[in-house]
């Protein structure tokens, strides 16, 4: 049952996603706004990475840039972007359409908005199968049924004929996952897949995603602002701030021994079961940088308690702390 969904030729150690110096500029204003300022990422097959950051940090934009989903007229994507051996930025229309859904698929934040409200779910999945594999509609529906069972939707056959509004939020997200997996992608991008869901449903969806990722050998990039989610689903965590990756490492390293002051602030401001009652939550003072007028050096410097004048002398280099663990901060080790 799992076998037909799995990609046979996925080699375990090849870098499936290879990103170097990814920049995204939004045009159309008085001057271009740099939303992503040079992101480097590598992802192997079967690996899960969490892109952690607050609103406006550029994490969702990065994710959409990987599929070139941003409006072409108003954005400029720079850098190197190779996924499964394809140069994504050079893809022509036809190969781009085959690439989307076929090589890389995306799960959106709110399945209530990301599914077409006037088409039956089964048909929406079948449509993708027909499109990518030249299958008949009936074959597409058969695949949809198989997928519905795979994502544990109860009475799957009946649910295929549902419209999105006839399903609960959790079930819709399962359907969205089924849709994303419809054409056996190698890379799965998930944009805050549990944010719009109830807390109890969140856990179920996360467990399902984790299970699918392991079973199908998918490379997964999770965008989230929730540290708990990041730890739950990811092997590695990349912390994003002001359009830059400020810290990258295994989830154990980043959460257990955060090196960048921003990561530390983020971890300090969450609620844990041991948080004392009646005490105000710790916050990071100030607000995220204005991307239209970014700080000259480290984007976090204006809010950083450890900042020194040298922090404004340009973007800090990556400081390697351990193999695979690095942070962009000149004050790493201080305090």
């Amino acid at each position, binding site marked *: 049952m799992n076998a037909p969904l799995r990609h046979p030729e996925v080699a375990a150690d090849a870098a499936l996603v290879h990103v170097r110096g990814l920049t995204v500029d939004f045009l159309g204003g008085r001057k271009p706004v740099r939303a992503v300022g040079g992101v480097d990422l590598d992802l192997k097959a079967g690996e899960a990475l969490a892109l952690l950051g607050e609103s406006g940090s550029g994490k969702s934009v990065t994710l959409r840039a990987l599929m070139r989903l941003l409006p072409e007229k108003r954005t400029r994507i720079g850098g190197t972007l190779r996924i499964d051996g394809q140069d994504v930025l050079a893809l022509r229309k036809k190969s781009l*359409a085959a690439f989307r859904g*076929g090589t890389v698929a995306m799960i*959106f934040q709110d399945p209530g908005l*990301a599914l*077409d409200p*006037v088409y039956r779910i089964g048909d929406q999945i079948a*449509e993708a199968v027909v499109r990518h594999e030249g299958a008949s509609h009936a074959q597409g529906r058969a695949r949809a049924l198989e997928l519905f069972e795979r994502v544990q939707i109860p009475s799957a056959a009946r649910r295929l004929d549902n419209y999105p509004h006839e399903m609960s939020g959790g079930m819709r997200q399962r359907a969205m996952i089924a849709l994303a997996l419809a054409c056996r992608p190698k890379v799965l991008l998930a944009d805050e897949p549990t944010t719009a869901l109830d807390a109890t449903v969140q856990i179920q969806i996360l467990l399902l995603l984790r299970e699918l990722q392991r079973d199908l050998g998918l490379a997964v990039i999770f965008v989230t602002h929730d540290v708990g989610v990041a730890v739950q689903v990811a092997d590695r965590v990349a912390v994003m701030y002001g359009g830059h990756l400020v810290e990258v490492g295994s989830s154990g390293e980043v959460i257990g021994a955060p090196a960048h002051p921003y990561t530390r602030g983020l971890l300090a401001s969450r609620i844990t079961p041991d948080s004392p009652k009646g005490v105000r939550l710790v916050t990071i003072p100030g607000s995220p940088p204005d991307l239209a007028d970014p700080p000259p050096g480290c984007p976090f410097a204006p809010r950083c308690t450890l900042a020194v004048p040298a922090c404004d002398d340009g973007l800090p280099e990556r400081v390697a702390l351990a193999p695979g663990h690095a942070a962009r901060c000149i004050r790493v080790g201080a305090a």
Partner: protein
Amino acid sequence: MILFILKRIGYAAPVALGVSLVCFLLVHLAPGDPLSAILPVDATAEMQAQMRAAYGFDKPLPVQYGIWLWKVLHGDLGNSIATGRPVLAEVSRAVGNSLILAASATLIGFTFGTFFGFVAGYARDSWLDRVASAVAVFGVSVPHYWLGIVLVIIFSANLGWLPPTGAGPQGSGNWWPDLEHLRYLVLPAVTMSVIPMGVISRTVRALVGDILHQDFVQALRAKGLSEFGVFRHVVKNAAPTAIAIMGLQLGYLLGGSILVETVFAWPGTGFLLNAAIFQRDLPLLQGTILVLAMFFVTLNLLVDVVQTALDPRIERA
């Protein structure tokens, strides 16, 4: 679905009854005595009373309404005071002609309106959008009787391509779908189509712009659909609203075509209403208004049913 349609018809019945009451009372509220139009100026009081009794105007209003409604339900709308012919025959012939005109105008308006709307919605804020929007605004704002006159001057008077007035050769009152009759239809239909075109174009533009900004469109692209594949989804999402607007426009055109029908001497309901008003032909006026109002009720019913069939989110209860 059948249950839904039956229920919806059930809701329409009291509306129809109310409409009939309003139609009945409207005429009695209007100033002037209907009989004064047909009686000679020097008629004696005795003659007046006789006529009043002959037409039933001497009975109390509720009784008059009851009698009138009973007759209406049996297809008897009375006789025209001016011509003496049955109102129903006059009205149904006029309704047929108006329906042809309104349907052609709506079809033209809907075709061009959706076309301009999609172009403008897809190419928002580009020069294409501005051109399409300008056409739409022109369509909504130009006085259409004036446009009719201009078209007649150009295509009939100067170029001589199309006949200026009437519904067919030799003032033929019965429309027939042949080429000769079609030539008579072109100018009034085009003139009348500019308003639905403008309204539909503006609506579709807003709809398409709105749909294109929704998450699911990005999700459709993310699953690898071509732009044409995405377009099909946009169309199906825009269809329920666009069709509702089209239905309402058809209703407006059926009733509100007095000016255009008068300019082109098109023997439809507008033309008939105009004549009935000027001749103080109250039974004719009453009958025409009632038939038009019933058309509106039926049309709304139809639009509701079609919309429900198209949009799964509307409860079928």
